[in-house]
């Protein structure tokens, strides 16, 4: 009985360990499925292709790889998915996908290393095949992997582009024991690479705060409040047990400087969704790095205009003007100012700004509306 229990619990050795010889048949089949799922995901057009950010994330994950993993069949790589929800997941062959949403909320490189270390451990410790073998034995069997629909509207349906393996890795997560192992081993990798262990619980506390702010649980593993609470507790215990007196690198400035375009991109989506506070937070990160970033300043103006709270219209005008000072050839703030003046009844200023907009963007998609407004102004 004890033998059976032990066999059930620790039947899979980590990648790179001497005990791992040939990959077994079912795991080979799983990898084949994984490659098909990845190809579908990569072709979907959802990958965020900023070369500097992709290179940076891959440099960080490379620092975490041990020599034994380097000689294993894993192809460790990070890919970024355009999606504002909090998500990251690893396929069993070592390819890690991180959403722009989670990267925009991470504060420094040490936190990124914690997240990537956690995901990398799922691959190195072969958690997916353990999950599949466990499910085959259970009555739920593979039916559990069928994705019918997710109870989440905004972008959560993106999970439907994932196949069965991606679903487990991304949405349902692994067993509590496997997740704890990913916390422990992932943090060990980050600490060995020289990162500050104290950042680990901060990352998940920060994500938890974000979820409370959004007032929803997202369909993904890192978008679930209880699971984030578990991570916080787990990392706090690990630090107390193993790394109480350990300091390390934060890499905050490097992280924020590299992520600047991603902050702006994520803010655009959050603004479209109507998450004004989240958009403003991302844009403040961008202007914190580059105070005269024209797009970030213009979008801060848009956040204020659309939120339309007390003093917001004045704030939006100020931001649009700052955006124009930052880039005199940037058309959008001119149109935004023109519309603002129009609403205020300042016809001459409105005319000037709208004409300047059409001058700077003669092929603008909304030229028809602007011309209509200019015609109305000339008839007044």
């Amino acid at each position, binding site marked *: 009985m004890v033998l059976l229990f032990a066999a059930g619990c620790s039947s899979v050795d980590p990648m790179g360990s001497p005990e791992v010889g040939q990959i077994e048949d079912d795991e080979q089949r799983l990898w084949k499925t994984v490659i098909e799922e990845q190809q*579908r995901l990569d*072709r*979907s*057009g*959802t990958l965020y292709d900023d070369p500097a950010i992709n290179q940076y994330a891959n440099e960080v994950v490379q620092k975490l790889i041990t020599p034994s993993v380097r000689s294993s069949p894993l192809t460790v790589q990070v890919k970024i998915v*355009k999606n504002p929800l909090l998500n990251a997941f690893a396929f069993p062959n070592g390819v890690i996908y991180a959403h722009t949403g989670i990267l925009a909320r991470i504060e420094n490189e040490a936190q990124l290393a914690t997240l990537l270390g956690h995901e990398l451990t799922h691959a190195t410790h072969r958690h997916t095949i353990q999950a599949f073998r466990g499910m085959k034995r259970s009555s739920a069997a593979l039916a559990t992997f069928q994705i019918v629909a997710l109870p989440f*509207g*905004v*972008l*959560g*349906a*993106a999970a*439907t*582009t994932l196949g069965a393996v991606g679903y487990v890795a991304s949405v349902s997560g692994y067993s509590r024991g496997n997740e704890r192992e990913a916390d422990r081993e992932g943090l060990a990798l980050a600490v060995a690479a020289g990162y500050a262990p104290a950042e680990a619980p901060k990352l998940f506390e920060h994500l938890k705060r974000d979820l409370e702010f959004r007032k929803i649980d997202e369909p993904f593993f890192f978008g679930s409040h209880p699971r984030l609470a578990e991570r916080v507790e787990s990392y706090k215990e690990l630090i107390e047990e193993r790394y109480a007196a350990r300091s390390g690198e934060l890499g905050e400035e490097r992280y924020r400087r590299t992520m600047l375009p991603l902050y702006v991109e994520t803010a*655009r*989506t959050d*603004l*479209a*969704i*109507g*998450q004004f506070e989240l958009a403003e937070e991302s844009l403040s990160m961008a202007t914190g790095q580059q105070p005269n970033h024209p797009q970030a300043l213009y979008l801060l103006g848009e956040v204020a205009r*659309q939120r339309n709270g007390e003093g917001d219209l004045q704030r939006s005008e100020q931001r649009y003007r700052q955006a124009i000072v930052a880039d005199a050839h940037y058309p959008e703030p001119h149109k935004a100012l023109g519309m603002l003046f129009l609403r205020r009844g300042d016809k001459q200023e409105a005319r000037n700004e709208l004409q300047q907009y059409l001058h700077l963007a003669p092929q603008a*998609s*909304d*030229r*028809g*509306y602007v011309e*209509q407004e200019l015609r109305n102004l000339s008839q007044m």
Partner: protein
Amino acid sequence: MKLLLVAVLSMCMLTACIGRQAKWSMVGGKELIENEPIEVEWPRAWMKFTPAEADESAKKDGLVLTATRDGLGLQAIILLKRPVDQGFNNTKKKAAPGIIPQELAELVLDDLRAAPNFIDLQVVENSPGTLDGVSGYKLVVRYRTEAGLPKQAVYYGCLEKGLLYTLIYKAPQRHYYGLDLPTFEAVKNSFKWKLQGGTSS
């Protein structure tokens, strides 16, 4: 006989309870859209799909009908209707009372930008448009589906009695979009508001 009568009556009552069923039907020529104050002239040899009354997904999207000739993936003309104060599926923003067409178009665009199945959305045109004389917007957008297929779509939308009506044409960007765009424009130009009782507005 009595038993048969009861059975027939029960069937009728059951059907009434279930409500309108989803159905595909051939279209061609003028049609007064069922339960809507709208008349359009359909092209010949197209098929129209009307969702079941109990179809929650169709209700959420405000789907009135969709029509196609070769299949919905190849070309689709869609008519949507939703109360403007009900909000949208993807964006949390709502239309303020007295919203102007340009602001309405921005809201519709934000809803598309926040949608998971409109990847790499590009706005080709955002201009004033009308549906049978009612001022609204015209949007032309390009995007990729979750499967990576480039598509193009035209949206004509306007507010009528507190309801946002949207007439859409969607097709793969290559070949099909240009092929059936004139057909769609003809349908759009045939769009007529009808007063209750069938008199033209």
